[in-house]
Protein backbone atom coordinates (compact mmCIF):
# COMPACT_ATOMS: atom_id res chain seq x y z
CA UNK A 1 0.00 0.00 0.00
CA UNK A 2 1.25 3.45 -0.90
CA UNK A 3 1.81 5.97 1.84
CA UNK A 4 -0.91 8.28 0.49
CA UNK A 5 -3.45 5.41 0.48
CA UNK A 6 -2.54 4.51 4.05
CA UNK A 7 -3.13 8.14 5.17
CA UNK A 8 -6.52 8.08 3.43
CA UNK A 9 -7.49 4.82 5.19
CA UNK A 10 -6.46 6.15 8.60
CA UNK A 11 -8.45 9.33 8.04
CA UNK A 12 -11.58 7.36 7.05
CA UNK A 13 -11.33 5.10 10.07
CA UNK A 14 -10.82 8.14 12.31
CA UNK A 15 -13.92 9.87 10.95
CA UNK A 16 -15.95 6.67 11.31
CA UNK A 17 -14.92 6.31 14.95
CA UNK A 18 -15.79 9.95 15.65
CA UNK A 19 -19.26 9.43 14.19
CA UNK A 20 -19.77 6.30 16.30
CA UNK A 21 -18.75 8.11 19.51
CA UNK A 22 -21.06 11.04 18.77
CA UNK A 23 -24.03 8.80 18.02
CA UNK A 24 -23.38 6.89 21.25
CA UNK A 25 -23.56 10.06 23.31
CA UNK A 26 -26.81 11.26 21.79
CA UNK A 27 -28.26 7.75 22.16
CA UNK A 28 -27.69 8.00 25.92
CA UNK A 29 -29.64 11.21 26.05
CA UNK A 30 -32.55 9.63 24.25
CA UNK A 31 -32.80 6.91 26.92
CA UNK A 32 -33.70 9.44 29.55
CA UNK A 33 -37.36 9.38 30.46
CA UNK A 34 -39.31 12.59 30.09
CA UNK A 35 -39.19 14.53 33.31
CA UNK A 36 -36.02 12.89 34.60
CA UNK A 37 -33.58 15.56 33.51
CA UNK A 38 -32.63 18.98 34.71
CA UNK A 39 -35.78 20.34 33.16
CA UNK A 40 -37.90 18.60 35.79
CA UNK A 41 -35.81 20.10 38.52
CA UNK A 42 -36.25 23.53 37.07
CA UNK A 43 -39.98 22.97 36.80
CA UNK A 44 -40.11 22.11 40.50
CA UNK A 45 -38.12 25.18 41.39
CA UNK A 46 -39.96 27.73 39.31
CA UNK A 47 -43.59 28.58 39.09
CA UNK A 48 -45.19 29.85 35.92
CA UNK A 49 -47.71 31.73 38.04
CA UNK A 50 -44.99 33.55 39.97
CA UNK A 51 -44.21 33.33 43.69
CA UNK A 52 -42.15 30.71 45.43
CA UNK A 53 -42.65 26.99 45.06
CA UNK A 54 -42.08 24.56 47.93
CA UNK A 55 -38.93 23.30 46.25
CA UNK A 56 -37.51 26.73 45.52
CA UNK A 57 -37.26 27.40 49.27
CA UNK A 58 -36.63 23.89 50.57
CA UNK A 59 -33.70 23.21 48.24
CA UNK A 60 -32.00 26.50 49.08
CA UNK A 61 -30.23 26.42 52.42
CA UNK A 62 -29.59 30.18 52.43
CA UNK A 63 -33.28 30.91 52.00
CA UNK A 64 -34.17 28.48 54.75
CA UNK A 65 -31.64 29.96 57.16
CA UNK A 66 -32.82 33.50 56.48
CA UNK A 67 -36.44 32.49 56.87
CA UNK A 68 -35.87 30.54 60.08
CA UNK A 69 -33.75 33.35 61.54
CA UNK A 70 -36.54 35.83 60.83
CA UNK A 71 -39.24 33.57 62.20
CA UNK A 72 -37.79 30.80 64.40
CA UNK A 73 -39.94 27.69 64.82
CA UNK A 74 -41.35 26.95 68.24
CA UNK A 75 -39.25 24.42 70.08
CA UNK A 76 -41.05 21.58 71.84
CA UNK A 77 -40.44 22.25 75.50
CA UNK A 78 -38.98 19.38 77.48
CA UNK A 79 -38.42 19.14 81.20
CA UNK A 80 -34.89 19.86 82.32
CA UNK A 81 -35.30 17.62 85.34
CA UNK A 82 -34.90 14.34 83.45
CA UNK A 83 -31.78 12.46 84.52
CA UNK A 84 -30.26 9.21 83.36
CA UNK A 85 -30.70 7.04 80.32
CA UNK A 86 -34.12 6.63 78.80
Amino acid at each position, binding site marked *: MKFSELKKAVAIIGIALFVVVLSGCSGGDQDQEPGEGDQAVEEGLESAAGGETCASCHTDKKKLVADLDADPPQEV*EKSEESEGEG
Partner: protein
Amino acid sequence: MEAEDKVLVAKEFLNTVHGQQGCTSCHGGVEPAASRKEAHQGMVAEPSAQKDSKCATCHADAAGTFEMTLHKTSRGIVDLDTGVLAARINPEKADLLQKAVDNHCASCHIDQCGDCHVSRPQWSGGGLIQGHVFQETPNPILNCTACHGSRVQKEMLGQGPSDFEPKLKPSVHWVPAGMQCVECHTKEWIHGPSTEAAVRYEVKEAPRCEDCHVDDTFYDNAYHKQHAEADPGKTLLQCQVCHSQPYNNCYGCHVGKDDKGLAYFKTDKSEFDFKIGRNPLKSQDRPYDYVVVRHVPVARDTFAFYGEDLLSNFDASPTWKYATPHNIVKVAPQAESCGSCHGNEAIFLLEENVAEDEREANREVIVPKPPPKF
Protein backbone atom coordinates in the same frame (compact mmCIF):
# COMPACT_ATOMS: atom_id res chain seq x y z
CA MET B 1 -29.10 18.75 63.43
CA GLU B 2 -29.77 22.42 62.64
CA ALA B 3 -33.36 23.47 61.96
CA GLU B 4 -32.63 24.31 58.31
CA ASP B 5 -30.94 20.96 57.71
CA LYS B 6 -33.96 19.13 59.06
CA VAL B 7 -36.10 20.48 56.22
CA LEU B 8 -33.51 20.91 53.46
CA VAL B 9 -34.56 18.94 50.37
CA ALA B 10 -31.97 17.65 47.89
CA LYS B 11 -32.60 18.64 44.28
CA GLU B 12 -32.05 14.99 43.40
CA PHE B 13 -35.24 14.18 45.30
CA LEU B 14 -37.28 16.12 42.78
CA ASN B 15 -36.25 13.61 40.11
CA THR B 16 -37.33 10.56 42.07
CA VAL B 17 -40.65 8.75 41.80
CA HIS B 18 -41.78 10.26 45.09
CA GLY B 19 -40.44 13.69 44.27
CA GLN B 20 -42.36 13.83 41.03
CA GLN B 21 -45.65 13.50 42.86
CA GLY B 22 -45.30 17.17 43.79
CA CYS B 23 -44.86 18.45 47.33
CA THR B 24 -48.47 19.50 47.88
CA SER B 25 -49.86 16.13 46.82
CA CYS B 26 -48.65 14.68 50.12
CA HIS B 27 -48.06 17.72 52.31
CA GLY B 28 -50.91 19.99 51.23
CA GLY B 29 -50.21 23.68 51.71
CA VAL B 30 -50.28 26.41 49.08
CA GLU B 31 -48.06 26.53 46.02
CA PRO B 32 -46.95 28.94 44.66
CA ALA B 33 -47.02 31.29 47.62
CA ALA B 34 -45.78 34.76 48.48
CA SER B 35 -44.69 33.91 52.02
CA ARG B 36 -43.86 31.01 54.29
CA LYS B 37 -47.05 31.62 56.22
CA GLU B 38 -49.13 31.38 53.09
CA ALA B 39 -47.22 28.35 51.79
CA HIS B 40 -47.73 26.47 55.05
CA GLN B 41 -51.47 27.07 55.32
CA GLY B 42 -53.08 23.65 55.72
CA MET B 43 -49.68 22.01 55.35
CA VAL B 44 -49.12 18.61 56.94
CA ALA B 45 -45.51 18.20 58.03
CA GLU B 46 -45.75 14.44 58.52
CA PRO B 47 -48.27 13.18 55.99
CA SER B 48 -47.57 9.50 56.57
CA ALA B 49 -48.84 9.90 60.13
CA GLN B 50 -52.32 10.51 58.73
CA LYS B 51 -54.70 7.60 58.81
CA ASP B 52 -55.16 6.34 55.24
CA SER B 53 -52.04 8.23 54.21
CA LYS B 54 -50.98 8.35 50.59
CA CYS B 55 -48.30 5.73 51.24
CA ALA B 56 -50.99 3.06 51.18
CA THR B 57 -51.89 3.93 47.59
CA CYS B 58 -48.83 2.06 46.37
CA HIS B 59 -47.66 0.24 49.52
CA ALA B 60 -50.97 -1.10 50.74
CA ASP B 61 -49.63 -4.23 52.41
CA ALA B 62 -46.95 -2.57 54.48
CA ALA B 63 -48.88 0.56 55.33
CA GLY B 64 -52.03 -1.36 56.19
CA THR B 65 -50.56 -3.86 58.60
CA PHE B 66 -48.13 -1.39 60.17
CA GLU B 67 -51.03 0.24 62.00
CA MET B 68 -51.26 -2.84 64.22
CA THR B 69 -47.59 -3.42 64.94
CA LEU B 70 -45.90 -3.08 68.32
CA HIS B 71 -43.77 -0.29 66.86
CA LYS B 72 -46.84 1.74 66.02
CA THR B 73 -49.10 0.96 68.96
CA SER B 74 -46.49 0.56 71.72
CA ARG B 75 -48.98 -1.82 73.30
CA GLY B 76 -46.14 -3.87 74.74
CA ILE B 77 -45.49 -0.93 77.05
CA VAL B 78 -48.70 1.04 77.33
CA ASP B 79 -51.42 -1.62 77.33
CA LEU B 80 -52.04 -2.34 80.99
CA ASP B 81 -54.06 -5.47 80.23
CA THR B 82 -51.44 -7.26 78.13
CA GLY B 83 -48.17 -5.30 78.18
CA VAL B 84 -45.08 -5.56 80.36
CA LEU B 85 -46.78 -3.89 83.34
CA ALA B 86 -49.91 -6.06 83.25
CA ALA B 87 -48.81 -8.53 85.90
CA ARG B 88 -47.70 -5.85 88.37
CA ILE B 89 -50.57 -3.39 88.37
CA ASN B 90 -53.02 -2.59 91.10
CA PRO B 91 -56.34 -3.14 89.28
CA GLU B 92 -58.13 -0.72 91.57
CA LYS B 93 -55.77 2.06 90.55
CA ALA B 94 -55.46 1.26 86.87
CA ASP B 95 -56.81 4.69 85.87
CA LEU B 96 -54.02 6.48 87.70
CA LEU B 97 -51.44 4.17 86.25
CA GLN B 98 -52.79 4.59 82.73
CA LYS B 99 -52.45 8.35 83.11
CA ALA B 100 -48.84 7.95 84.21
CA VAL B 101 -48.03 5.57 81.38
CA ASP B 102 -49.68 7.85 78.83
CA ASN B 103 -47.67 10.82 80.11
CA HIS B 104 -44.30 9.12 80.25
CA CYS B 105 -44.18 5.96 78.18
CA ALA B 106 -46.55 6.46 75.25
CA SER B 107 -44.47 9.01 73.36
CA CYS B 108 -41.83 6.43 72.48
CA HIS B 109 -43.25 4.89 69.34
CA ILE B 110 -42.97 5.04 65.59
CA ASP B 111 -45.94 6.96 64.37
CA GLN B 112 -45.54 6.89 60.63
CA CYS B 113 -43.79 5.44 57.57
CA GLY B 114 -41.63 8.56 57.26
CA ASP B 115 -39.99 7.97 60.64
CA CYS B 116 -38.01 5.13 59.09
CA HIS B 117 -38.07 5.83 55.35
CA VAL B 118 -37.71 9.62 55.04
CA SER B 119 -36.48 11.24 58.24
CA ARG B 120 -35.10 10.49 61.65
CA PRO B 121 -37.91 9.49 64.02
CA GLN B 122 -39.90 12.44 65.31
CA TRP B 123 -39.39 11.10 68.83
CA SER B 124 -35.67 11.76 68.52
CA GLY B 125 -36.02 15.18 66.96
CA GLY B 126 -36.79 14.35 63.34
CA GLY B 127 -34.90 15.79 60.38
CA LEU B 128 -34.72 14.64 56.77
CA ILE B 129 -32.23 11.93 55.83
CA GLN B 130 -30.71 12.09 52.33
CA GLY B 131 -32.56 15.30 51.56
CA HIS B 132 -36.00 13.64 51.54
CA VAL B 133 -34.95 10.88 49.12
CA PHE B 134 -36.96 7.87 50.31
CA GLN B 135 -34.83 5.05 51.66
CA GLU B 136 -36.15 1.52 51.32
CA THR B 137 -33.95 0.34 54.18
CA PRO B 138 -33.87 2.41 57.37
CA ASN B 139 -30.44 3.65 58.38
CA PRO B 140 -29.21 1.64 61.41
CA ILE B 141 -27.74 4.68 63.15
CA LEU B 142 -29.97 7.56 62.06
CA ASN B 143 -33.22 5.60 62.29
CA CYS B 144 -33.08 2.45 64.38
CA THR B 145 -30.68 3.45 67.11
CA ALA B 146 -32.02 6.99 67.19
CA CYS B 147 -34.60 5.36 69.47
CA HIS B 148 -32.83 2.15 70.48
CA GLY B 149 -29.73 3.98 71.68
CA SER B 150 -28.93 3.30 75.29
CA ARG B 151 -28.93 -0.45 74.88
CA VAL B 152 -28.88 -1.68 71.27
CA GLN B 153 -26.61 1.02 69.84
CA LYS B 154 -24.06 0.73 72.62
CA GLU B 155 -24.03 -3.02 72.31
CA MET B 156 -23.83 -3.10 68.54
CA LEU B 157 -21.02 -0.54 68.37
CA GLY B 158 -19.09 -1.85 71.36
CA GLN B 159 -19.66 1.35 73.31
CA GLY B 160 -19.71 1.56 77.09
CA PRO B 161 -17.73 2.94 80.00
CA SER B 162 -14.20 3.67 78.73
CA ASP B 163 -12.62 1.99 81.75
CA PHE B 164 -14.75 -1.14 81.52
CA GLU B 165 -12.82 -4.41 81.61
CA PRO B 166 -12.70 -6.53 79.60
CA LYS B 167 -12.79 -4.05 76.72
CA LEU B 168 -16.06 -4.14 74.86
CA LYS B 169 -16.02 -5.00 71.18
CA PRO B 170 -18.58 -4.18 68.52
CA SER B 171 -20.89 -6.98 67.49
CA VAL B 172 -19.48 -9.18 64.73
CA HIS B 173 -22.72 -8.48 62.91
CA TRP B 174 -21.64 -4.83 62.70
CA VAL B 175 -17.85 -5.16 62.41
CA PRO B 176 -16.78 -6.73 60.12
CA ALA B 177 -20.09 -8.01 58.74
CA GLY B 178 -21.68 -4.54 58.39
CA MET B 179 -25.14 -5.98 58.59
CA GLN B 180 -28.19 -3.76 58.51
CA CYS B 181 -30.76 -4.10 61.32
CA VAL B 182 -33.37 -5.25 58.80
CA GLU B 183 -31.34 -8.32 57.91
CA CYS B 184 -32.48 -9.86 61.20
CA HIS B 185 -35.43 -7.63 62.02
CA THR B 186 -37.05 -8.22 58.67
CA LYS B 187 -39.56 -6.00 56.97
CA GLU B 188 -42.13 -8.73 57.47
CA TRP B 189 -41.61 -8.39 61.19
CA ILE B 190 -41.45 -4.59 61.23
CA HIS B 191 -44.50 -4.18 58.98
CA GLY B 192 -46.36 -7.30 60.01
CA PRO B 193 -49.50 -6.96 62.05
CA SER B 194 -48.23 -9.28 64.82
CA THR B 195 -51.67 -8.98 66.36
CA GLU B 196 -51.12 -12.16 68.34
CA ALA B 197 -48.18 -10.60 70.16
CA ALA B 198 -48.70 -8.60 73.32
CA VAL B 199 -44.99 -7.95 73.74
CA ARG B 200 -41.99 -8.18 71.42
CA TYR B 201 -40.78 -11.64 72.35
CA GLU B 202 -44.16 -13.04 71.33
CA VAL B 203 -43.83 -11.90 67.70
CA LYS B 204 -43.64 -15.00 65.49
CA GLU B 205 -41.29 -13.43 62.95
CA ALA B 206 -38.82 -12.33 65.65
CA PRO B 207 -35.17 -12.97 64.70
CA ARG B 208 -33.64 -16.31 65.59
CA CYS B 209 -29.89 -16.99 65.55
CA GLU B 210 -30.65 -20.56 64.53
CA ASP B 211 -32.15 -19.42 61.22
CA CYS B 212 -28.70 -18.47 59.92
CA HIS B 213 -26.24 -20.33 62.09
CA VAL B 214 -27.47 -23.89 62.43
CA ASP B 215 -26.22 -25.98 59.51
CA ASP B 216 -24.87 -29.51 59.06
CA THR B 217 -21.62 -28.64 60.83
CA PHE B 218 -23.13 -26.76 63.76
CA TYR B 219 -23.02 -29.69 66.17
CA ASP B 220 -19.45 -30.58 65.19
CA ASN B 221 -18.50 -27.89 67.67
CA ALA B 222 -18.21 -29.60 71.08
CA TYR B 223 -19.70 -26.61 72.95
CA HIS B 224 -22.70 -26.54 70.62
CA LYS B 225 -23.11 -30.29 71.00
CA GLN B 226 -23.15 -29.98 74.76
CA HIS B 227 -25.13 -26.79 75.27
CA ALA B 228 -27.15 -26.03 72.13
CA GLU B 229 -28.65 -29.42 71.36
CA ALA B 230 -32.11 -30.05 72.76
CA ASP B 231 -31.51 -33.37 74.38
CA PRO B 232 -32.78 -34.63 77.71
CA GLY B 233 -30.04 -34.57 80.28
CA LYS B 234 -28.22 -31.69 78.68
CA THR B 235 -28.36 -28.10 79.88
CA LEU B 236 -29.66 -25.98 77.05
CA LEU B 237 -28.23 -22.45 76.78
CA GLN B 238 -29.48 -19.44 74.87
CA CYS B 239 -26.90 -18.47 72.21
CA GLN B 240 -26.12 -15.17 73.99
CA VAL B 241 -24.99 -16.98 77.13
CA CYS B 242 -21.74 -17.84 75.34
CA HIS B 243 -21.67 -15.17 72.63
CA SER B 244 -22.61 -11.85 74.18
CA GLN B 245 -20.53 -9.39 76.17
CA PRO B 246 -21.55 -7.23 79.16
CA TYR B 247 -24.49 -4.91 78.40
CA ASN B 248 -26.34 -1.98 79.85
CA ASN B 249 -28.70 -2.42 82.82
CA CYS B 250 -30.89 0.35 84.23
CA TYR B 251 -32.23 0.70 87.75
CA GLY B 252 -34.80 2.73 89.62
CA CYS B 253 -36.76 4.77 87.09
CA HIS B 254 -39.03 7.36 88.70
CA VAL B 255 -41.34 9.64 86.77
CA GLY B 256 -43.03 12.91 87.60
CA LYS B 257 -43.95 16.35 86.35
CA ASP B 258 -41.94 19.51 86.97
CA ASP B 259 -43.18 22.97 88.01
CA LYS B 260 -44.20 23.69 84.42
CA GLY B 261 -46.20 20.47 84.21
CA LEU B 262 -43.67 18.85 81.89
CA ALA B 263 -43.05 15.13 82.20
CA TYR B 264 -39.64 13.97 83.37
CA PHE B 265 -37.90 10.78 84.45
CA LYS B 266 -34.93 10.01 86.65
CA THR B 267 -33.08 6.73 86.85
CA ASP B 268 -30.99 5.76 89.86
CA LYS B 269 -28.19 4.29 87.78
CA SER B 270 -27.17 2.50 84.57
CA GLU B 271 -24.32 0.03 84.58
CA PHE B 272 -22.71 -2.56 82.35
CA ASP B 273 -22.89 -6.07 83.64
CA PHE B 274 -23.36 -9.62 82.43
CA LYS B 275 -25.57 -12.10 84.24
CA ILE B 276 -26.85 -15.54 83.40
CA GLY B 277 -30.18 -16.45 84.95
CA ARG B 278 -32.82 -19.12 84.69
CA ASN B 279 -35.12 -18.65 81.71
CA PRO B 280 -38.25 -16.73 82.74
CA LEU B 281 -39.79 -17.10 79.25
CA LYS B 282 -39.34 -20.81 78.69
CA SER B 283 -41.44 -21.97 75.76
CA GLN B 284 -41.31 -24.12 72.65
CA ASP B 285 -39.62 -21.26 70.80
CA ARG B 286 -37.28 -20.48 73.70
CA PRO B 287 -36.60 -23.81 75.38
CA TYR B 288 -33.33 -22.72 76.97
CA ASP B 289 -32.65 -23.55 80.60
CA TYR B 290 -30.31 -20.60 81.09
CA VAL B 291 -30.39 -17.22 79.40
CA VAL B 292 -28.82 -13.81 79.65
CA VAL B 293 -30.86 -11.50 81.89
CA ARG B 294 -30.96 -7.71 81.99
CA HIS B 295 -32.20 -5.47 84.80
CA VAL B 296 -35.02 -3.24 83.59
CA PRO B 297 -35.60 0.20 85.10
CA VAL B 298 -38.94 -0.43 86.79
CA ALA B 299 -39.05 -0.06 90.59
CA ARG B 300 -41.78 -0.67 93.14
CA ASP B 301 -42.38 3.10 93.39
CA THR B 302 -41.69 4.12 89.76
CA PHE B 303 -45.10 5.79 89.47
CA ALA B 304 -45.40 7.07 93.07
CA PHE B 305 -45.86 10.63 91.75
CA TYR B 306 -49.30 9.56 90.53
CA GLY B 307 -50.41 7.66 93.62
CA GLU B 308 -49.44 5.15 96.23
CA ASP B 309 -49.09 1.48 95.49
CA LEU B 310 -49.89 1.59 91.77
CA LEU B 311 -47.74 -1.50 91.25
CA SER B 312 -49.19 -3.47 94.13
CA ASN B 313 -48.32 -6.76 92.40
CA PHE B 314 -44.74 -5.75 91.79
CA ASP B 315 -43.41 -9.18 92.72
CA ALA B 316 -45.47 -10.95 90.07
CA SER B 317 -42.88 -10.33 87.37
CA PRO B 318 -39.06 -10.32 87.48
CA THR B 319 -36.98 -7.17 87.22
CA TRP B 320 -34.17 -9.22 85.64
CA LYS B 321 -35.61 -9.95 82.23
CA TYR B 322 -34.90 -12.34 79.40
CA ALA B 323 -32.49 -10.38 77.20
CA THR B 324 -30.97 -10.56 73.75
CA PRO B 325 -27.96 -8.22 73.80
CA HIS B 326 -26.69 -7.10 70.40
CA ASN B 327 -22.97 -7.30 71.21
CA ILE B 328 -22.34 -10.74 69.75
CA VAL B 329 -18.77 -12.02 69.41
CA LYS B 330 -17.49 -15.40 68.35
CA VAL B 331 -15.76 -16.09 71.64
CA ALA B 332 -16.90 -14.02 74.61
CA PRO B 333 -14.83 -13.97 77.81
CA GLN B 334 -17.18 -16.39 79.61
CA ALA B 335 -16.80 -18.93 76.78
CA GLU B 336 -13.05 -18.98 76.33
CA SER B 337 -12.87 -22.33 78.09
CA CYS B 338 -15.06 -24.58 80.21
CA GLY B 339 -13.49 -23.02 83.31
CA SER B 340 -14.41 -19.49 82.18
CA CYS B 341 -18.00 -20.35 83.01
CA HIS B 342 -18.05 -23.41 85.25
CA GLY B 343 -17.07 -22.24 88.70
CA ASN B 344 -17.21 -18.56 87.72
CA GLU B 345 -19.94 -17.33 90.08
CA ALA B 346 -19.49 -13.69 89.00
CA ILE B 347 -21.39 -14.23 85.77
CA PHE B 348 -24.46 -15.85 87.35
CA LEU B 349 -27.41 -14.03 88.88
CA LEU B 350 -27.17 -15.16 92.47
CA GLU B 351 -29.44 -14.10 95.29
CA GLU B 352 -26.75 -11.77 96.62
CA ASN B 353 -26.74 -9.89 93.29
CA VAL B 354 -30.42 -9.02 93.59
CA ALA B 355 -31.66 -6.15 95.75
CA GLU B 356 -33.42 -7.49 98.84
CA ASP B 357 -36.60 -5.67 97.84
CA GLU B 358 -36.62 -7.48 94.48
CA ARG B 359 -35.72 -11.02 95.47
CA GLU B 360 -39.27 -12.29 95.53
CA ALA B 361 -39.94 -10.85 92.06
CA ASN B 362 -36.87 -12.65 90.71
CA ARG B 363 -37.28 -15.96 92.51
CA GLU B 364 -37.68 -17.90 89.24
CA VAL B 365 -34.70 -16.20 87.59
CA ILE B 366 -32.09 -16.37 90.35
CA VAL B 367 -29.62 -19.21 89.91
CA PRO B 368 -29.59 -21.20 93.15
CA LYS B 369 -26.49 -23.19 92.39
CA PRO B 370 -24.12 -22.20 89.59
CA PRO B 371 -22.18 -24.97 87.86
CA PRO B 372 -19.17 -26.05 89.93
CA LYS B 373 -15.58 -26.10 88.74
CA PHE B 374 -14.55 -29.12 86.74
